[in-house]
């Protein structure tokens, strides 16, 4: 007997339709993604959108309020806040994405190791616990204090500060995946440990990592702004949002607009990244829940 007529066939949906359906069901992805895309375009085309060289000092036109020529006004050195804010987008995105990528890759590697090797787990996770006991900002400040101020170092410092949380997440996922029958089935079929990791564990960590990555990205942008604001982040010569705010701090009462514009940009950027992350979590989690 072959008896297969009982099992219904599921019609495969064309890929295009599936993408559209997911997007319609998760407007957060659309909204967050769209805003983030616009911000990314601003960052890429900053030289064309900026009206004035962001570094150009013109003492004669200091502290101008927003007006026709200077949309966001000028700061105490006569630099155009609009142009500086646009260029600041670049720093924020580079740091956010860079730190997220670094923390994700590092966390994935550490998480796989700790999830599979017992003695390494004991040692590495204690180190991670130690790192986690220090507030991320404080840790980043400490790391910046012992290195030179540069965007590269900011990214590394923030990534190290974010690393423990990603590692913990991956470790948890790996530990629960290890006990899944399909991993045992793979072992029973003669698959080696390395191959099991690559083919069976790794692809299953992608969804939670993607979501966590966006949160790390948002958090890294804020940390970068904080570091720059207190003068421990991006070198002051580069216009980052934190730097702009920091420079205007002392003249906040007369020129508050200088602080407001970059902070609004920062808020919108972080919000869009978080929206995107939330949307992805909503879209990916049901499948995750069914799997685990």
């Amino acid at each position, binding site marked *: 007997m072959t008896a297969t007529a009982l099992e219904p066939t*599921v019609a495969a949906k064309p890929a295009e339709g599936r993408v559209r359906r997911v997007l319609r069901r998760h407007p957060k992805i659309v909204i967050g993604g769209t805003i983030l895309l616009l911000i990314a375009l601003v960052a890429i085309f900053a030289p064309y959108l900026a009206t004035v060289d962001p570094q150009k000092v013109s003492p004669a036109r200091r502290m101008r309020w927003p007006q026709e020529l200077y949309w966001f006004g000028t700061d105490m050195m006569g630099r155009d806040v609009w142009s500086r804010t646009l260029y600041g987008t670049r720093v924020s995105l580079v740091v956010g994405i860079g730190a997220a990528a670094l923390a994700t890759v590092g966390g994935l590697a550490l998480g796989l190791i700790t999830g599979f090797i017992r003695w390494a787990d004991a040692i590495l996770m204690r180190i991670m616990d130690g790192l986690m006991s220090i507030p991320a900002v404080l840790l980043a400040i400490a790391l910046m204090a012992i290195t030179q101020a540069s965007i590269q170092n900011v990214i590394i410092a923030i990534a190290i500060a974010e690393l423990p949380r990603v590692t913990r997440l991956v470790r948890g996922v790996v530990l629960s995946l290890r006990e899944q029958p399909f991993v045992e089935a793979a072992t029973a079929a003669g698959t080696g440990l390395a191959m099991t990791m690559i083919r069976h564990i790794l692809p299953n960590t992608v969804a939670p990592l993607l979501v966590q990555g966006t949160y790390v990205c948002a958090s890294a942008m804020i940390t970068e702004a904080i570091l720059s604001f207190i003068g421990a982040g991006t070198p002051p010569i580069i216009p980052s949002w934190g730097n702009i705010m920091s420079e205007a701090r002392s003249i906040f009462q007369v020129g508050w607009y200088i602080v407001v514009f970059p902070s609004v940009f920062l808020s919108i950027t972080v919000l869009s990244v978080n929206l995107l992350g939330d949307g992805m979590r909503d879209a990916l989690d049901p499948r995750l829940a069914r799997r685990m």
Partner: protein
Amino acid sequence: MTAPLLEIDDLRLHFYTRDGVVRAVDGVTYHVKAGETLAVVGESGCGKSVTAQSVLRLVPSPPGRYVSGQIRFQGRNLLDLDMAEMRKLRGAEISMIFQEPMTSLNPVLTVGRQIGETLVLHQGMDQKAAEARAVEMLKLVGIPEPERRVREYPHQLSGGMRQRVMIAMALACNPKLLIADEPTTALDVTIQAQILDLMRELKSRVGAAIILITHDLGVVAEMAERVVVMYAGRKVEEASVDDLFARPRHPYTLGLMGSIPHLGSSLVHNAPPRLAEIQGVVPSLREEIPGCAFAPRCGFATERCGRERPEIEELAPGHFAACFEAERVAAQFAEAAS
């Protein structure tokens, strides 16, 4: 007579946990001949799965440790092999079907790649050849439209189809021994029947020996040629299927048979015959049991059973049992049957 395909010889596998030693497998001996179907029955926790898993050395160690015994597959003791040699055997010579078809497949890989994995691994096929073979295997296990199904993900298949995929994976390399660990427990009854039919059909075609682990005596009667009954980490009875059902010699086997509901054993008659159960629970395997492990639950138990452990003996040709009262058990069964 040629040597059996697989011989498990006085296997003792103990788990060393924080709360003490658990004697999960405590001196089990059985064998499987080439092409034969052997059923291993017993209730949960009697060691039937662990014994079978130790054939593939899937029991994590620690906490598990092989205290003594041998597992000889085609004359080689599997417990002496290193991991690389073991990996070569797994999936190629001996493969396994698991209980949970819903979770035994990787949700993010297509069915074709999962079937192909063993082929790439053991037969050095390239991805393309493996996929072609996967289509063939799907066709063999009776999945319609195999060319399309091969590219689908597990969540697109029903439970019965997934179990068919598992069988296809297990048989892809033409293993000599297939261990099926409760392959139908998670499926509903009609699908169960289909899967059992399929296994029987494929067995005759592929010629693999099967160790069928189950707690369902109905499945045993339908599939197996020989049966091993396990209780508390030991073999308590072994016989051919016909002998076992015609003349059980261990009270535990008798109890298992008594606890099957029969069609027509209605509950609406005036004095409804209550479905017999085996009183009590499985003993803890942490403590050394001086006498027969089943004695506290056994209606035939005498004072001797609590003191002395009955050894397994051949009471009739090919029929082994570990019970002092085996003849009384058999006699009572015969009386009840007539």
